[in-house]
């Protein structure tokens, strides 16, 4: 074994140019793999983040005529007790109109306990001007709405409910949640304000839940779990996966094509190494023949090439990881949006990189297998005779 390794190293060193070319070949394969993998994972992460990052992943509504959930305290406790739930907010949502001088605009008034809702929707982070509502009868609206109807933070606005009841609210801030339909339609008020104005005290219309970020893809299971625990027939559970089936199938299609690309890159690397090593066995067949005449065992003669494959694989993987990271960093540094943010945020996952390196090394060892077998089967007499 040790001798096999020593001979392998010597063979590789004695032909530095060729050795470097093989290592470079493996490295390019690995770096392409890491780059594509990081790119696609980054794309998916940001897509999912955009889709579900600032919104509830599970929501519970009532399937009753008035859509109101009564006696929600007990349900609230049960949800809170679930360890996968990291954020829980109750909402009292109602349609209303924003009353303007010569027109009116339909609004969805959403009453929240704002500290809770902030965890999910990140209102305070997305305030453009002013602040989030702190007192009763304060409201914030989306920037699109402010712009369209020329409203100013500090204005007092009038809303009308479906029973023609009118209420004056103070506009204390504007937000930008980066979703046009929200920016145009939502009016965020404290929970009490909504409950009083719409005359639904002690009732809410939904629970909104975010789960542990590690488990977002299990939101459907967590939702089913909650449904069993809560056990109230009139409640309806929905989760982001159900609402985004197309997105999910798109993502999984993308993942499969990414894996396919990576598999083909690896196959070409393996074929490359296998053919170069096969040539190396031919180049070194004289040496193998001499060594066998001196009494090295067939297994040792085989190990020489297994070691060569392993050494090439390890160095190729290391260089490839370095190149891949360099490529990725360069890409995020130089391919920028006008505002200076990277066009595509790569997701550099340590475990993915490690896996790529390990796979490349294993693949190189595999590629060395046929040359190794050839070397172990080589008959010294063929070499000695054909001087």
């Amino acid at each position, binding site marked *: 074994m040790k*001798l096999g390794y020593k001979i392998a190293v010597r063979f590789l060193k*004695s032909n530095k140019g060729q050795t470097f070319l093989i290592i470079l070949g493996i490295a390019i394969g690995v770096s392409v793999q890491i780059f594509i993998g990081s790119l696609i994972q980054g794309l998916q992460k940001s897509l999912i983040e955009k889709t579900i990052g600032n919104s509830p992943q599970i929501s519970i509504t009532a399937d009753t005529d008035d859509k109101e959930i009564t006696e929600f305290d007990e349900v609230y406790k049960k949800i809170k007790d679930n360890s996968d739930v990291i954020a829980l907010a109750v909402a009292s949502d109602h349609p209303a109109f924003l009353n303007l001088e010569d027109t009116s605009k339909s609004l969805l008034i959403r009453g929240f306990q704002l500290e809770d809702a902030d965890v999910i929707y990140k209102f305070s982070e997305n305030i453009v001007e002013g602040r989030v509502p702190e007192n009763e009868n304060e409201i914030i609206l989306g920037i699109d709405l402010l712009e369209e109807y020329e409203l100013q933070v500090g204005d007092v606005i009038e809303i009308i409910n479906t029973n023609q009841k009118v209420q004056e609210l103070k506009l204390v801030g504007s937000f930008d949640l980066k979703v046009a339909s929200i920016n145009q339609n939502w009016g965020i008020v404290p929970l009490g304000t909504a409950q009083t104005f719409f005359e639904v005290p002690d009732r809410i219309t939904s629970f909104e839940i975010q789960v542990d970020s590690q488990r977002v893809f299990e939101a459907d299971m967590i939702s089913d779990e909650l449904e069993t625990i809560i056990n109230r027939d009139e409640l309806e559970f929905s989760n982001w996966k159900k609402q985004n089936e197309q997105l999910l199938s798109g993502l999984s299609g993308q993942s499969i094509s990414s894996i396919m690309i990576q598999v083909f890159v690896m196959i070409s690397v393996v074929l490359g190494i296998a053919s170069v090593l096969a040539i190396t066995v031919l180049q070194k067949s004289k040496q193998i*023949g001499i060594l066998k005449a*001196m009494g090295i065992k067939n297994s040792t003669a085989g190990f020489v090439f297994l070691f060569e494959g392993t050494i090439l694989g390890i160095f190729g993987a290391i260089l490839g990881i370095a190149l891949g990271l360099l490529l990725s960093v360069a890409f995020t540094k130089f391919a920028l949006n006008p505002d200076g943010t990277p066009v595509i945020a790569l997701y550099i996952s340590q475990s993915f990189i490690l896996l790529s390196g390990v796979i490349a090394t294993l693949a190189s060892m595999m590629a060395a297998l046929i040359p190794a077998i050839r070397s172990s089967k080589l008959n010294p007499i063929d070499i000695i005779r054909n*001087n």
Partner: protein
Amino acid sequence: MKQILELKNINKIYGTDIKTQVLYDINLSFEEGSFNSIIGQSGSGKSTLLNLIGTLDKPTSGEIRINDVAVSAMNQNQLAVLRNNTLGFVFQFHYLLPEFTALENVLMPYEIKHGKITKEIIKKAEDIMDLVGLKQVKNNLATKMSGGQQQRTAIARALINEPKIILADEPTGNLDSDSTETIYQLLRNINETYKTTFIIITHDRKIAEKADRIVEIKDGKINMDIRK
């Protein structure tokens, strides 16, 4: 004296479709510690015979016994051990490993045998190399030496494991007559010092005549067998 090597009814036929018989019913045995030469015309079957003795090739029929053990009964690994411990080869075309230095080449059979190199064995290798006149070029790569130096390196390599038998196939075939003379003197000294059995193929009659025994092969048969 003990017969270290015995060949019984050895036949060698090359080829499967077109068969050429190269050796016919060879019966030979060699005494331990003897210095033997094999002569014969080119193509008479000398190398074929030596390769059979060296276990590099197998006879079509017949038995070869080395140290009273039938070679045909050994598996690949046992043959490898036998080649490593008991046999030393010196080929016409020296066959050094070009990736290694002269010293490393000399040490290779020992490393194959023991898996490691000790200070003692390096010392011994250097002594042998001094003996064969390679003091100056020990650390040269095999390719960075003259033909004579390479051949002497191959001889030093054949000696390192103190094999019982050294097989040499025209070891001076491509050397000038002075070098040839030196190398034969060297082999003879080793034979006398270590009691190593030598079987040397040569086309040089002058050299052959200095051996204890001359075996002449002609058309695959023993034509003459003279002992002194």
